């Protein structure tokens, strides 16, 4: 699909991602990924690495490709189009960025090559599946001891957690009103993962920590400063999630449109009904707007690296509010316009319907995001 908003390289990236999904990620791969305990096929993740997707947005100095955040969202949109089950958004973007931007050199040297080539996978264990702007940070605690820290507690449910090789964990420090950010190796003693699949097949999980010894913190900050620092990764995850969801709804729309043009009822295609036509137009236009806003949010993310968090957060929250609303509208229309077949597991649209329904909730419902937008609009002094 040619799109005048893309430059030539972006168009190539989009085309190659679409080709990959169309050729390499069909119903069989999707079912295998859903059946996998982690909701992620390691061989697919390696392919993502080989295609360069896991390092797009990382600096070349770190072994990345120095691309923009908008670039990585292009891949995200195409993976969404194919309802790819692997946690590209939850695990392949912000976690890698965080590590590249906040870790010291030897930690980067230890982790980044594997994260970029897809042989290892890290995840933001502190990012809840609910409203991403409300990080529940009281449930993990860190105690300072000689030679490092001891962590204990349990994280809330996080997407992509099961099967990850490294977990970014946020903990309240026992020795003062501070928070620590830690990168835990999956092999550490005292770590237990409680895996859990979302209803659309995506893998998630909780991390249980019992006296887990960690030598270094990635960062220790007062709570407001820590949340300010993490805002970039939270917003980035939300924006990439929006891009992915736009891809999913675009394809759900196309499947529905094709079905209605083909399927005959009362002697004519269902799409001959004016009511159906106008509903399809409404949905089409909403998807176009949701895509435009999601891409604008990615553009804002690129523009304000580090500064002007207000604009970035407002665009992220607005994009998610918009995408949540349209995703709901889209899956409901896909079901209603298909009829009973739209509710079956065996017909292709079913997986799209489930993914869109879950996507509307993930990282915060429309209502939650609108509250964030309103806060930023009306309480500018506070923000």
């Amino acid at each position, binding site marked *: 699909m040619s799109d005048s908003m893309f430059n030539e390289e972006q168009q190539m990236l989009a085309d190659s991602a679409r080709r990959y999904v169309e050729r390499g990620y069909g119903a069989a791969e999707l079912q295998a990924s859903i059946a996998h305990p982690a909701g992620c096929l390691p061989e697919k993740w390696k392919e993502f690495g080989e295609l360069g997707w896991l390092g797009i947005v990382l600096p070349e100095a770190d072994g990345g490709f120095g691309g923009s955040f908008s670039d990585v969202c292009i891949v995200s949109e195409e993976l969404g189009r194919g309802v790819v089950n692997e946690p590209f958004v939850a695990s392949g973007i912000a976690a890698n960025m965080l590590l590249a931007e906040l870790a010291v050199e030897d930690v980067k040297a230890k982790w980044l090559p594997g994260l970029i080539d897809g042989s290892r996978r890290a995840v933001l264990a502190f990012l809840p599946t609910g409203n991403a702007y409300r990080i529940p940070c009281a449930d993990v605690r860190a105690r300072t001891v000689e030679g490092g820290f001891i962590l204990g507690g349990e994280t809330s*449910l996080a997407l992509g957690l099961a099967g990850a090789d490294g977990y970014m964990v946020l903990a309240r420090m026992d020795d003062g009103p501070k928070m620590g950010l830690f990168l835990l190796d999956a092999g550490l003693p005292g770590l237990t993962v409680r895996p859990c699949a979302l209803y659309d097949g995506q893998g998630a999980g909780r991390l249980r920590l019992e006296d887990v010894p960690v030598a270094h913190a990635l960062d220790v900050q007062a709570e407001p400063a820590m949340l300010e620092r993490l805002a970039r990764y939270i917003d980035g995850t939300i924006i990439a999630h929006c891009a992915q969801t736009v891809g999913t709804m675009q394809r759900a729309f196309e499947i529905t449109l094709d079905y209605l043009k083909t399927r005959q009822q009362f002697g004519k295609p269902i799409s001959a009904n004016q009511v159906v036509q106008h509903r399809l137009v409404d949905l089409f236009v909403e998807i176009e707007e949701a895509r435009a806003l999601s891409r604008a949010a990615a553009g804002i993310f690129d523009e304000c690296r580090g500064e002007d968090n207000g604009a970035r957060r407002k665009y992220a929250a607005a994009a998610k509010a918009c995408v949540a609303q349209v995703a709901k509208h889209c899956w409901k229309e896909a079901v209603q316009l298909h009829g009973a077949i739209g509710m079956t597991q065996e017909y292709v649209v079913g997986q799209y319907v489930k993914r869109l329904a879950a996507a509307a909730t993930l990282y915060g419902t429309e209502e939650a995001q609108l509250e964030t937008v309103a806060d930023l609009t009306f309480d500018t002094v506070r923000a």
Partner: protein
Amino acid sequence: MSSNPSLQEFRQQVRSFVRSKLPGDIREAVRSGQPVPRERSIAWNRLLAEESLLVPHWPSQWGGGGWTVQQQMVFDEEMCTNDAPEQNSVTFDMIGPVLVRYGNDAQRGRFLPAIASGEQWWCQGYSEPNAGSDLASLSTRAERRGDHYVVNGSKIWTSYAQYADWMFCLVRTDASAKAQQGISFMLIDMKTPGITVRPILGIHGWVVFNEVFFDNVSVPFENLVGEENQGWTIAKSLLEFERLKLARIGENKRRMARAREAGMTHCEAGVRVANSSWFRQRFSELEVRLMALEANAGRFIARAQAGHPIGADVSMLKMRGSQLIQLWEELTVDALGSAALSHDAVDTAEGLSEIAATASSRRFLSRGYTIAGGSSEIQHNILAKQVLGL
């Protein structure tokens, strides 16, 4: 139930009956939105049958209660709001009344007591792979051979066919007749050789639909209901009281209670959801819609009670009642937020109730209400043509 109490007394009687007699495991399953196992449903049906409360809306001679329309509606509502399982409407509201009206004496004597005992389950074979809302194009055919028909073809979207003992279905008996003309209404024993039931897993994770294949299935002539080639007339004749039920007042109230429970028990970021203004606003919008739906259904009940014909405008009850069911389910899912993202939701730190574990499934399931039994789009067409004269 006393023979002629006031409506309010009657309601109290039904209420105390269901509250005292409904087994606790069934009540809890229904309250929290879990599916009720078939054998437990049948156990409850037997209990109702013993008290002559399983088919109170049938004529007295076949086990009905001789109640007024209002009493029947009150009974249904109280059963729902006190967490009795939904009755299999295909069995009790469709084939039962059809046989009362169109069956011959032998058919009535054979089937009605069996249904009224709560032991026999039916499924409905109308839709086909190439005939959904547009039944006129159905192609499953029945050919006379000796003393029986031979049926070939398939049906799809057959709800709960996997549990059914019998199917009533529409088959083409005259291939040369146009559209609805050559269709007959037939009863088929699901144990007849040549029938294969293929369950279709729904996105909600439950098997509701099935595909049913007929490969030279033999059906005795005596299983034909009404005249040959007049099946269309029978299929159209959903009886009036059943159409009132499609407002689903009780089912909506049950869902309102569940949404309320989700809001009152679930917290987001330390705040009880029922204290969030978005939840209060959406809840009260839906509550107002339910009050309006109930008041509107009351007009139709009064018509029926007065013995007047119900009229084509009754379609609006199905249209609005089914949509409202969906809105309650969505509100519940949104109230639970991320807690409803997984079917394993019970196993979480927040210690959420069973409601969360199946909220998303129920929400998906509810989409069928505006598709089955004449989609909302078809209801709009009916109202436009038959009521507004468009």
